[in-house]
């Protein structure tokens, strides 16, 4: 029971509980808050695992970017201060049972693989690749996984690596991001026709509540 383990259990508990909270909470903004903690916990786990870069990226992109976007989405589509869409208990039951089944299956498969290869997973590689290595392998300079049937490589065996480039995926992702930027801007742009009609004739507006169109100016 080392310090690392303690930290892991703390973070894991936070993450898991907050994830569950995301599921159960009805208020969407609170769900977003719980999600925040989940993501933060995950990035904490990354730091714990020594993947600083990934952790930082997780924080920057998810917490700083995605979540904020989500909250924007909430507020732009808000009809009341606290959105609340309940679903029937039956649906809850179904969803939960299905989820439990899935979790059981996953856990079971884990156990099976444990039985099959006892040594699997317990071997900690001494050093985590730091940001330099990542950058180099994104530029196709550093060495990456050996070719071959991945599952066939037993853990704790580090073997001769061949040069492999992630430059192309990197470029593709960047271009993809650009496309997304434009596409999102196009999709989300305020529809003239609608924005002309909506604020005037929208029944569920009026009393001191916010509406998306007003905020749309600010965002």
């Amino acid at each position: 029971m080392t310090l690392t383990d303690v930290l892991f259990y703390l973070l894991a508990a936070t993450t898991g509980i907050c994830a569950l909270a995301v599921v159960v909470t009805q208020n969407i903004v609170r769900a977003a808050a719980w999600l925040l903690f989940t993501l933060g916990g995950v990035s904490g786990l990354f730091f714990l695992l020594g993947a600083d870069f990934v952790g930082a990226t997780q924080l920057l992109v998810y917490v700083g970017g995605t979540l904020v976007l989500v909250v924007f989405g909430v507020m732009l589509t808000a009809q009341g201060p606290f959105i609340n869409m309940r679903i029937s208990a039956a649906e809850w039951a179904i969803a939960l049972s299905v989820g439990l089944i899935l979790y059981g299956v996953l856990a079971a498969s884990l156990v099976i693989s444990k039985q099959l290869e006892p040594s699997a997973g317990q071997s900690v590689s001494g050093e985590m690749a730091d940001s330099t290595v990542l950058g180099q392998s994104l530029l196709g300079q550093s060495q990456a996984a050996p070719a071959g049937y991945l599952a066939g490589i037993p853990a704790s065996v580090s073997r001769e690596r061949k040069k492999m480039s992630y430059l192309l995926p990197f470029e593709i992702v960047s271009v993809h991001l650009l496309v997304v930027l434009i596409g999102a801007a196009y999709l989300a742009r305020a529809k003239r026709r609608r924005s002309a009609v909506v604020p005037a004739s929208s029944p569920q507006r009026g009393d001191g509540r916010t509406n998306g169109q007003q905020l749309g100016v600010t965002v």
Partner: protein
Amino acid sequence: MMNLVELFGEHPGWYFVAATLTPLLSFVLILLASAMWCAGRAYRATPAGAAIFNLFGGEERGRIPAFVATGAIALAFVFSLIGFIRFTAQQSTFETQINQLQTKLHQLQTQKKTATEKWTHELEEEIEAEEAKLENKEKMWTSARSYAWQGNFDWLRIRPAGIRDADNGTVLQLGFKIDSLSALMFVMVTFIATLIHVFSIGYMSEELQPEVEDHQVHTAHGHLVRRGRFGRFFMFLSLFCFSMLNLVLADNLFQVFLSWELVGICSYLLIGFYTERQSASNAANKAFITNRIGDAGFILGLLILWTNLGTFNFDEIFQRVRAPLSDTHGSVDVAGRIVRGNVDPNNTTKAGQRFTPDEDGSQVLLFPHRPPEHYHAIVSRVSDNPKPDQHSAMPYWLLVAAGLGIFLGCVGKSAQFPLQVWLPDAMEGPTPVSALIHAATMVAAGVYLVGRCYPLFTYDALVVIAYTGGITLFVAATIAVVMTDIKKVLAYSTVSQLGYMMLALGVGGWVAGLFHLMTHAFFKALLFLCSGSVIYGCHHEQDMLKMGGLFPKMKITALSMLAGVLAIAGIPLFTGWYSKDAILAQALGFIYVHPQHLFLFLLPLVTAGITAFYMARMWLMTFTGKPRDEHVYEHAHESPWTMTAPLIILAVCSVCVAWGWPIYDAEASWLEHNVHHAQHHAVLADFGHVDFTESKDHGEYWVVAKKQAQNERLYAFHNHHLAGNLALGLVAISLAFAGLIYWKRVLDPAEAKEQFPSLHAFLMDKWRFDRLYSVILVRPALVVGHWLAWFDLHVIDGLIHLLSWLTVLASKWDGIFDNAIVDGLVNLVGNVMYDAGARLRNVQTGYLRSYVLFLVLAAAGIFMVLAYFVRMAMAG
């Protein structure tokens, strides 16, 4: 820019490439300009269109195309002159050094013969040193030549699938190879072409008017009136010059063939320049079709060569066909010869098939054109799959066929005996065209190609060539005697002169033939231009019977034409003399060795006289005596300077272009020596004198070598003066005869006509060639065509109608079947599907969340299955 300087500095061969491309450039320019003009003209209602229209000449499109084309060709002339000078300079330096070395070597060898024992080995060492030097120097020359004066690049490469090897697949190259022959040809062609361009500016001047009335075309409303085609004419001229120069430039047969066809189409366009004239278009078609016949042979030859030698490059072809000068074991006895032998296909080993040399064997030994480091030129085993870099064999008759095929192409182009019919009709084109194409350059292309491909021709092929030439020159000359159209006379004289050249090539007078090609180009161009000037002066009157006594009217024309006449007649010190003597001497030497071919000497000898006669006749009928047609005589006038200046220049050239020092020595012509540089060693090997005293013994090839060793050239050298003097005598006689008839009027040609009416008719009818062809070729073709048309109309169409009727019938039944059964089935399936869908649609709730649930379930299921299988795999 710097690169260009380096290019032309280090590879002066590119001067010639530039010279080739300039006319093409002018062609393109004129073409684009006229295209713009037409576009503008179509829209000249709109301001923009009108602007373009006026920019590119408007209604009055002046002389600009002419200036462009003339400037281009003049530039080409300058380029090729520079190239020529540089080439000759380099060549002469190297050759003087080589000659010095050779003389020194010879002295040493003579010393060695006389020296005492104790000096011998030192002398031998010295000799070896000198030999090494000589070899080195020759190597240097060849490498320098290949570096500076050759070049090629793959134009297109078609490979069989899967082959990535550069040596495999079909490679068509574009390239240039300059030797003194092509350099001379370049200078000659560009020079004459330049003069002719200048001449045409004057001659075609009436095409400048927007509306030209063509007096020879009669329409319902009198004469045809059409737009002037000044620019088009020069455009064609430029294209023609380009293709001709490209032909001379080429270093492979394929490029030659391309430009060959281009030349053909240009001549077609130019002959049919006055399209509206029935005669002109007929002549154009005739020329074109006749050339097609020749080109069919050409293509056959190309195919044979490609399939057997796998290359089109001249050098490689020759290296493959002819034995090399020396191999690892020293000089080869059969150097430069075609080695024949028999291949025993049964006796094949890993090394290949057994090859037994035999002077009249059925196979020809093919030598590697990329020989290995150590190799023996004459081998006893040849590989059974012909690769360019190893010994192999090809059937002898195929080689002969290839040679004859290519020669057939040349026959068509140079209007030789069976196919000479097109050239006289080609005089329908404007006179400068006749001068340029049908005297100076295009018809020369055939002769030039025969000269280029000389090493390809076996002995048999050469004999055929020689006889073709002989027959042609005689036939044409005889016809020329009776012709009264001034241009026709010149046309036939051209044909017969070309016959001379062919004959010379056939009998081994390679140098003589090509030499005559050069000189003839000059004086024939001169003659044509003079005739053009006469015709122009006489308002397009070509019939000599309406001329006469024009001398005082057009002195310059008359005098320069006289120079041309004397030159072609072979009067000493005129260019024709040197070349014709050389040809006759060669023919004489040939029949010394092969007495059975006596005619090959007699025909040219006699024809020399005839030539002199009809040329004199033409000149005298045109310029002397009293005028026969007053109308023509009154209107006759001297041409403008643009036309006379070229005449004078050409006259000077045709007098002294072949001079050497001493002038009176027929063998001291510098032109001849320059041509001599380009001679392929195969010529000497076939007709030259071979000295066997020093040759090593190569077993049975000795016999082959000895039997093939003739020395026509030796005899030709010894009997040069005899032949020359004989010809000169004949010429003098016939000149006098002509003088008596047409000048002093002692004899009346009309009487001679009445004396032999049948002969005259026969000759007037051009030996009835056209009639013969129409009987044996044209009419049968027409008849067959009618049969075929009938067959097509009744049988084939009938069948097709029957078929269509049957189809309609069948499709009716098919329609019924379709509607009843097929559609029924399809509808059934469709209904089933529809019902199934109608029941299954309920699964598609449209609720996102239910879909997600399905997904999750699916994931779970997949995981279960996977886990199961993995366990199975791992455990079992």
